[in-house]
């Protein structure tokens, strides 16, 4: 069991949990993830390690509630515990000083972008964060990202904050201008966003790293459920990634593969939502 040290809401649907896991905290490196199983009946799901504090013996996860497990996790309070956590998993990201790094995050991807951007900043890079969402109130971790960025650029689909448009539009402008062109792009977000970012940087030859979060069962290289085509070869995101060269990833295939269990996911989420309402209704 892994006890919750602290739990706090960071915005609509966004939760931060500090979890007691001293050995994982000591071993964790940027870019790695955890496999969590909420309780005996739950799925195993991958979540990026947002922070690790070896002195406090805690690891931090930041997540948006999108499915049943993340909804369950969002209701945990200090003193509660998560049944199983395995990690740190995956290859860590090579963090080097390259100059200017554009850290591009969309919606649910921003929590996973944050530790990578922070590591880039710590390594002495100039970090320009390009953050986007459908609408202003869905922009997440703005304060945290601002604190570790030299510059923050914001886009919303509806123009309610920052530029009206997509993060890839903003990035395209940055690429066209020599004075703002990044030396490296790190992008985390929904699959169409990462695909658009990769296509935006490709003609400019700017290296673009993406962090993938496909469906996984074990997270240790055993099931191959997370397989993704990279450079024409099948890779397992859990052990060969999760970070890959965005110019090599077959995003169209990945998008299709993420649809495998949608009816199951919706049923689990709906039944859970229904049960929650019943609980609230009872005295």
């Amino acid at each position, binding site marked *: 069991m892994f006890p919750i040290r602290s739990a706090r809401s960071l915005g609509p649907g966004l939760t931060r949990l500090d979890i007691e896991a001293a050995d994982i905290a000591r071993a964790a490196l940027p870019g790695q993830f955890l496999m969590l199983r909420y309780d005996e009946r739950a799925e195993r799901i991958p979540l990026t390690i947002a922070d690790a504090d070896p002195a406090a013996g805690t690891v931090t996860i930041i997540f948006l509630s999108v499915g049943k497990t993340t909804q369950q996790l969002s209701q945990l309070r200090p003193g509660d515990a998560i049944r199983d956590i395995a990690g740190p998993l995956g290859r860590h990201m090579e963090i080097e000083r390259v100059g200017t790094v554009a850290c591009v995050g969309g919606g649910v991807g921003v929590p996973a972008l944050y530790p990578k951007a922070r590591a880039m900043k710590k390594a002495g890079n100039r970090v320009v964060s390009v953050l986007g969402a459908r609408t202003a109130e869905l922009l997440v971790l703005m304060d945290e990202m601002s604190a570790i960025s030299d510059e923050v650029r914001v886009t919303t689909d509806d123009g309610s904050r920052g530029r009206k448009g997509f993060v890839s539009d903003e990035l395209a402008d940055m690429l066209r201008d020599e004075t703002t062109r990044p030396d490296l792009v790190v992008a985390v977000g929904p699959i169409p966003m990462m695909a658009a970012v990769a296509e935006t940087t490709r003609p400019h030859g700017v290296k673009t790293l993406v962090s993938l979060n496909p469906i996984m069962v074990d997270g240790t290289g055993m099931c191959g459920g997370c397989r993704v085509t990279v450079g024409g070869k099948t890779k397992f995101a859990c052990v060969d990634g999760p970070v890959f060269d965005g110019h090599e990833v077959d995003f169209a295939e990945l998008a299709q593969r993420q*649809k495998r269990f949608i009816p199951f996911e919706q049923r689990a989420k709906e039944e859970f939502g229904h049960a929650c309402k019943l609980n609230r209704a009872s005295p």
Partner: protein
Amino acid sequence: MPASSTERPPDGRRASLPRQRMPEQEASVRAGNFSEVALGLSEEMAVTEASRCLDCKRPKCVDNCPVAVDVPAFLSLVKTHRFDEAASLVRAKNSLPAMCGRVCPQENQCEGGCVLGKKHEPVAIGYIERFLGDYALKRGSAAAATPDGPKVAIVGSGPAGLTAAGDLAQAGYRVTVFEALHDAGGVLRYGIPNFRLPKDVLSAELGYLGTLGVEIRVNAVIGRLFTVPSLMESGYRAVFVGTGAGTPHFLGIPGENLNGVYSANEFLTRANLMQAYRFGEVDTPITAGRRVAVVGGGNVAMDAARVGLRLGAEEVTIVYRRSRAEMPARAEEVVHAEDEGIRFEMLTNPTRLLQGSDFWVTGLECLRMELGEPDASGRRRPVPRPGSEFVVEADTVVIAIGSSANPLIQQTTPGLSVNDRGYIVTDPATGLTSIPGVYAGGDVVTGSATVIDAMGAGRRASAAIQEYLGSS
């Protein structure tokens, strides 16, 4: 081979007793549930079966057992209803008899050597071993032991690791088993389905190891959370690596990443470890659809096919590129699969997976094969018959063509010798690797083999570790 002249001539009376039949769930019933197929012998049946043993002077059954269980001695005890003593005798050589009785390929091992099998049917040694294993688990164990010897780390809680752990704990070593998943057992947990190896029996065997003083730490991925060198630094005097062969192979043909295509590892892990067949009560999904095709001819292929059937598929087909005679699966599993209505397309090799309008698989395009000259494995090589293309329709395709070693330990243990196929190089007699104090055994050394072979490797390594730590 003629019987040795030192063996007594077969005893006509005992040999004429028919081999006891294993009581089973009826095929039509069991195909709809995940409960165990083989129900186990009664005490009377076990005694009758044991009395068939001729007690030969040179028992081949013992020679053929990778852990050299004293088969005639335990059969002799069963004959006289001394089940407790018989179970202790088995456990002295085999910490997991309830497992082995269920999953060993006895026809190639103990029973394959039984002299009775030459003219009649061999003694059902596996059935009796299972009977004793279950008997011992039901009786429970004495008070828990608390070993106080040197610390030994075991990486992986599959058959190799658990055997080494049991032996070392019994010898007084403080043993910690590190398991990457959230439940222990390795392939016994994630690979072998409940209908062949009930998970409560596995848990009971693990409970028995607990009473020997074995500590199991789950959620511990060695190579990430800790490494072999860091375990040595933190006070473990020896490490045994039994991480198995967990990386699934794919065919390398077009369409393999379509939705509905699973590695056998994924399909079975969802069904077994995650219990996805109980979706609704549990949250992990699995899909089978109306038609399932399984590619491969080993035990894993049989397991995947039978899981597909139990998930409600109307038609399940095994596609295998050689013929029945070359199938590596245990004979009993093939018969069980056939009885349950699994179709077999032998001498058939898939060439590509077909897709419908969405991204889901709709079938498997195959070529008929014929057998040519023997290949490196001694089996006749399948050769394609030109123009013989046909389609096996399927909503789910499971690729069960084998697996290789997970490279994590090899990548994170400097100085560890690994062969060109990624397996750890060891001294076969001791399991010693290129690093003093570090031993390895089971599939991570040999590639995919059997549960009992892995147990044999665990046993040899534990003896070598005791010698190493006793003398150092």
